[in-house]
């Protein structure tokens, strides 16, 4: 494997780790299982691409815009779904992300519809557009680092304790004075805006976006998959999960993609099943258990 390929894997792994960490804030900490984060990834991607290519503004303005729009949309979704739990909330998020995808397909004047947008800009930090890969690796690393620190901070903050309390037992949490609805809405807004930043990075890295590559349902599943494999509700879980899932997915596609149709997907599925059977609570918990066993044996 060559150095550019390795760098490519690294960049995608770091960006997806960050997005999964954003998802983990809502699903892992607050227990609100969203399958609509593709909407926020897509909004971030389109906001960055449209402001940069169409209006000639710096990409950073697009990222900020996408962050605000995603946050507002999450505020709206969270406030109309305050009382919903379990499958009802999940379905509502799926419906919302589908609506966003269909609007992106329909509003051709703004998004170019199914043709997508090719991102071509003057290279430089102001446009977040580079011809080499390494600046993206630095940016993706920064994004992942910031996401990890934020998640760890939120987990330790008062908000984090509220979220975990209401996830484990909402009635008990409310009786102890946790502002359940407010905490849930705040978690949704933070999670959505942070995911949109990851979406923008993804768009600037691939330099081409269309509704299928930024808003499809599969993009909502990806962060969930990464987080569940890594460890739902642990700050480090999404990072461990991304380290396994993203390279595995890409490498299997590279190795077996040309052979039999769908073979790479089959192998990927089998590996996932084995991993989840061996570590049902995620890699983080499994690693903790294995370490405990090892130290007991060697005590």
């Amino acid at each position, binding site marked *: 494997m060559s150095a550019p390929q390795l760098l490519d894997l690294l960049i995608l792994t770091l960006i997806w780790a960050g997005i999964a960490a954003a998802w983990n804030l809502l699903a892992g900490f607050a227990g609100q299982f969203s399958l609509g984060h593709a909407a926020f990834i897509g909004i971030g991607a389109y906001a960055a691409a449209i402001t940069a290519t169409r209006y000639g503004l710096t990409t950073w303005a697009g990222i900020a815009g996408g962050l605000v729009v995603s946050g507002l949309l999450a505020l709206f979704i969270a406030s109309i779904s305050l*009382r919903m739990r*379990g499958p009802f909330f999940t379905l509502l998020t799926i419906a*919302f992300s589908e609506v966003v995808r269909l609007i992106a397909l329909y509003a051709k004047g703004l998004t170019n519809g199914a043709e997508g947008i090719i991102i071509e800009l003057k290279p430089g930090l102001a446009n977040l557009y580079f011809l080499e890969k390494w600046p993206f690796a630095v940016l993706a690393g920064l994004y992942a680092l910031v996401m990890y620190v934020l998640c760890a901070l939120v987990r330790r903050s008062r908000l984090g304790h509220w979220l975990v309390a209401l996830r484990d037992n909402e009635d008990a949490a409310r009786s102890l004075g946790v502002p359940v609805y407010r905490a849930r809405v705040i978690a949704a807004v933070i999670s959505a805006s942070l995911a949109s930043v990851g979406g923008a990075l993804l768009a600037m890295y691939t330099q081409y976006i269309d509704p299928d590559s930024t808003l499809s*349902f599969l993009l909502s599943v990806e962060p969930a998959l990464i987080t569940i494999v890594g460890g739902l509700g642990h700050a480090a879980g999404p990072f461990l999960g991304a380290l396994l899932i993203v390279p595995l997915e890409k490498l299997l596609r590279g190795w077996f993609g040309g052979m039999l149709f769908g073979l790479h997907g089959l192998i990927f599925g089998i590996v996932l099943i084995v991993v989840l059977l061996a570590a049902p609570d995620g890699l983080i918990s499994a690693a903790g258990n294995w370490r405990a066993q090892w130290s007991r044996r060697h005590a």
Partner: protein
Amino acid sequence: MDFVLVAFVVVVLGGLGSLPGAVIGGFLIGVVEQFSGFFMDTSLRQIVYFAFFIIVLVLRPAGLFGQRGAEEIGLQ
């Protein structure tokens, strides 16, 4: 994927666990989809029925014929 999603939407719209709900939900979604395709724009069909689904879910979170309060406990 499209069929899975429509099936979910229909069942939740009618109310999870309710058989007449599923029938009526399917009927409603089909009619809304086709009418909006005819009167507005065929590419807007899905947007309209998802919007319809969201509105119903907001007004009656358990679905049209679902058990009241099911949305708050989650499905057991």
